[in-house]
Structures are given as C-alpha cells and as structure tokens.
C-alpha cells in the first residue's frame, strides 16, 4: 500500500487559494471551516513564500494520541481519519496538532464546539465508501474512486503534490535538481520525522 502524503513546493505556490476553494466545494464544507488554507510568510518582503497547509496525516499522529475517546484511525494508505459519531468536541486534537488542522463547526463556549472536522485526504470516513452518510459527514471519497485529493489535482502551478510519499518526493527532487533550488518539504520533519534534501 502507498504511504499518502502532502508536499507543498513553496517555490511554486502563488497563493491563488484555488486549493482552498476546490476543497470547500468538493466536500461542501460549511462556513467557518477551512480544511486547507494558504499561509504567506514574510508577506511583502524579499523571499516571501506561501505554503498551502492542511492535515498532514502524520506518522504517529498527535491528535490520535491525545483524543480522550480514541475516535481517530489510520487507513491502510496511512491517511489519518476520525469518526464524527465518536468525537465529543473536547478540542484536544487542536491543542496537539502542529498544523492547526482540526476545526470545529461552532466557536461556542462550554465545550459546545460540535464535531471536529478536518482534511480527510479526500478519503471520507468510517461509513461505507461513497455512501450518502459518508458524504454528509466527511465529504467526497475520491480515494475510493481511484482519484487523488482535489486540492493537489487542480493546483494551477502543481505546487501542491499529494500521493504516495516516495513518488511525490521523487517529483520534487527532480524539480529541485533541474531548477537548482528548493526550500524543502514544509512540515515534513514535524509530520513524518524526515526531511527532503534539496
């Protein structure tokens, strides 16, 4: 099986936010929730870079470790998913996540956050693949249809890569050697405990 990962080539990202929009549209994500977002570093200064970030589907995921009701699970493709039926909305996964991926539909107090929502790597949830229930809770299950995440698939500069870690690293390394520079795979050290030499 593949080991699914995201890799954002920050030297290519033009901050068009198409990945954000595609994600919201594909999964019909409610207002206020952004499974994917683009963050611009050194905005307006020389060396400005933008990075598109969502759940990185970490190795030994911190969210899964701290969840008091154990609602997370990892698929055979190493995608980190969770069950909204089990989630109690305690907010701990957000405190543990290094990438700020978990989101909650409500910002209410007294722990009334509602069920956590996050990027599924377009792989749905625990319900039957492609079922109506799955779509309503987690959005489309493109992986079950043999497709990769839409954010990366429709990235206009092919900055965002999604797929088997070994394959996307190969693509990235070829790019770096051809153009002569690369700022590295953002978040990989934190998420996968490995870096991509550039």
């Amino acid at each position, binding site marked *: 099986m593949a080991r699914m990962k995201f890799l954002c080539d920050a030297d290519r990202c033009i901050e068009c936010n198409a990945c954000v929009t595609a994600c919201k549209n594909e999964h019909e994500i409610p207002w206020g929730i952004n499974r994917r977002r683009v963050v611009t*570093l050194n905005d307006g200064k020389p060396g400005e870079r933008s990075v598109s970030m969502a759940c990185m589907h970490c190795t030994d995921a911190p969210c899964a*470790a701290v969840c*008091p*009701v*154990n609602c997370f699970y990892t698929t055979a493709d190493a995608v980190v998913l969770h069950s909204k039926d089990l989630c109690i909305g305690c*907010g701990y996964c957000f405190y*543990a996540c290094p990438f700020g991926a978990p989101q909650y539909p409500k910002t209410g107090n007294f*722990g009334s956050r509602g069920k956590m929502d996050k990027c599924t790597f377009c792989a749905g949830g625990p319900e039957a693949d492609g079922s109506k229930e799955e779509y309503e809770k987690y959005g489309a299950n493109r992986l079950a249809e043999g497709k990769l995440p839409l954010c990366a698939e429709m990235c206009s500069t092919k900055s965002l890569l999604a797929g088997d870690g070994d394959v996307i690293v190969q693509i990235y390394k070829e790019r770096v050697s051809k153009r002569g520079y690369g700022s*590295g795979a953002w*978040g990989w050290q934190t998420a996968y405990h490995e870096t991509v030499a550039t």
Partner: protein
Amino acid sequence: MARLSKRVRFIAGALALMFVLAFAGATTRPAFAQVDPNAAAVKEQQLLDKLNVIQGRGTIPDTKSYVLEHPAGRDWRVFHTVWLKWIGGLSILGMLALLVVFYLWRGSIPIEEGRSGRKIIRFTAFERFVHWLTASTFVILGITGLNITFGRALILPWLGPSAFSAWSEWAKYVHNYLSFAFTIGVVLMFLMWIGQNFPTAADVEWLKRGGGMFTKKHGGHPPAWKFNAGQKILYWFVVLGGVAMMISGYMLIFPFYGGLTVGDMQLAEIFHGIVGVLFVSLILAHIYLGTLGMEGAFEAMGEGTVDLNWAKEHHPLWVEDELAQERSPKGPGLVTPAE
C-alpha cells in the same frame, strides 16, 4: 543669494553625475544571472529554531489558522499521554496505598474516653450546606475529569466505543456546568472559614507531633482550635487549588477568549491536570479521615454535632472557647440529648 544657490545647484549636479557614473560602472556585470531566488527566502528550519512556531498571513477570518506550524503540540501531547498519567496514577494510587497501610496499622482512631452522650454543635446548617455543595460537585468533577485522562485506557475497553463516547460527552457537559456550583462552594467556604484558618502557635505543636495520628499512645492528640493544622492545610489547598482550577478551567471552557493562543490553552490544560490529580488524592485522605479513619468524625458534617469527648480530644482549645461562650448569657453551643 542668487549666486550662492547657483553654486549649490552646481555642486549637487556634479555629485549626482558622479553617483550615476559610479553605479554605471558597478552594473556592468550581469547581476541577474547570479541571483539565487531562494537566497532571501524564508527557511522552515530557521523559523522553527527561532521561535518554534511559524506564523504568517492568511486570508480567512480564523486568525488561528495563520499559524502554519506549531510543533509544541508534540510536547503537550507527551505531557497529556505520558506525564499526566504518571503523576495522576502515582498520586492517586499512592495515596490509596498509604491510606490502606495506615488503616491496617492504626485502624479507626477511637474516642479514647468513649462517648460522653453529650453533644456539641460543630457545624451549622449553612456550613454543612456549603461543605456538601462543594463536596458533591467535587466528586462529580473529579470523576468526569479523570475520565478525560484515564477513561480511554480504563473504561473504553469494557464500555465499547459508542457507549464510552456518549458517556464522555455527557461527562464533559456535566464537568463544564457543575464547575459553577463548585466555584460558588469554594468562594463561600473561603469567606466562611477564613477567620479560623490563620496559622497559630498551636499549629506548630500539632505539626511537630504529626497530629497525633502516628502514635497509639493515650492522650497523643495535640490540642487544636476549631481547625487543626492538617485541616488548615486542607482549607488553603482547597481555596488556592480551587482558584487555580477555576482560572485554568474557565480558560478551557472559553477557548481562545481575549487573545488566548494554542500555547496558553496547552498551559491551562497542564495546570488543570496536575492540580486536579493532586486535589483528588488530597481529598481522598480527607474523605478517609472524615469517615472510616476516625470514630465520631463524620457526624460533624453529617448531623452538625459531635460528641463532647471527641471534641475535647481533638479540638480542646475550641471546646473551651465554646463552653465559655455557653456560660455567658447569649451563647448556645451545648446541646443536651432529648433523653
């Protein structure tokens, strides 16, 4: 004047020409061929080394999302999944083990002179109400709180995922809402008993003799006023620990209010967790001494009256005071039984 300005203009013109020539000389080399587009670019490791957080600018209203990377979550995770479990497990199980050993060695501490049959008012109805308000909510807060840390390992396996989730969600709401009743209880307790809880000379003696708990000798109880040094320590821990629990707890109930960051939330949870498990283990000792551990102690909070001999053995200074008041015209205090 006109000549001077003409001269200035000439000098300025000459200087400008010199600069242009100097720059023209400098730019004869093809500068752009050597530029590395990444030379000035931000580097992930550099940013992480600096602050251990990478923050930028985003375009969505949720400003929390402008933090790109915050690896500190991993430290918090280690605290929550490893350290808190050890601190909580050791303090609570350790306290239980100590109490069992103490009970086996000392047994229930008896009223040495036996019961006198005369009772003295120890706590008024209001004092008992405040105590049980705080106590009952504390027990529920303790159980529902421990569930968050230990439930996954201890309860989930035999309750099953959906039943455990349903219970945990209710437990979370109960924990959040009962916190207000507990807060009121602690505040009332603070105001009600602060007068009797300042340290006195008797406390030093009491502490030196370990409260008389570790001797089976007759008359081993050191004297005390209404509250002995042990009870005063408990009082101040409940008040200060209660305030600590309130502040950290309300931070967790109102997440990200008033500019709280993820780091603040993590700190609040760490604080809440450590003080919470210590609180639980201290209250276990309190419950033991108030029930099983000491003959005649529970009725103080149960009915509000205690046997005069119990009072004389444990709180002689307080009894003297009460009896002196009773002899004066307006003080009640001593109650004779109906028969």
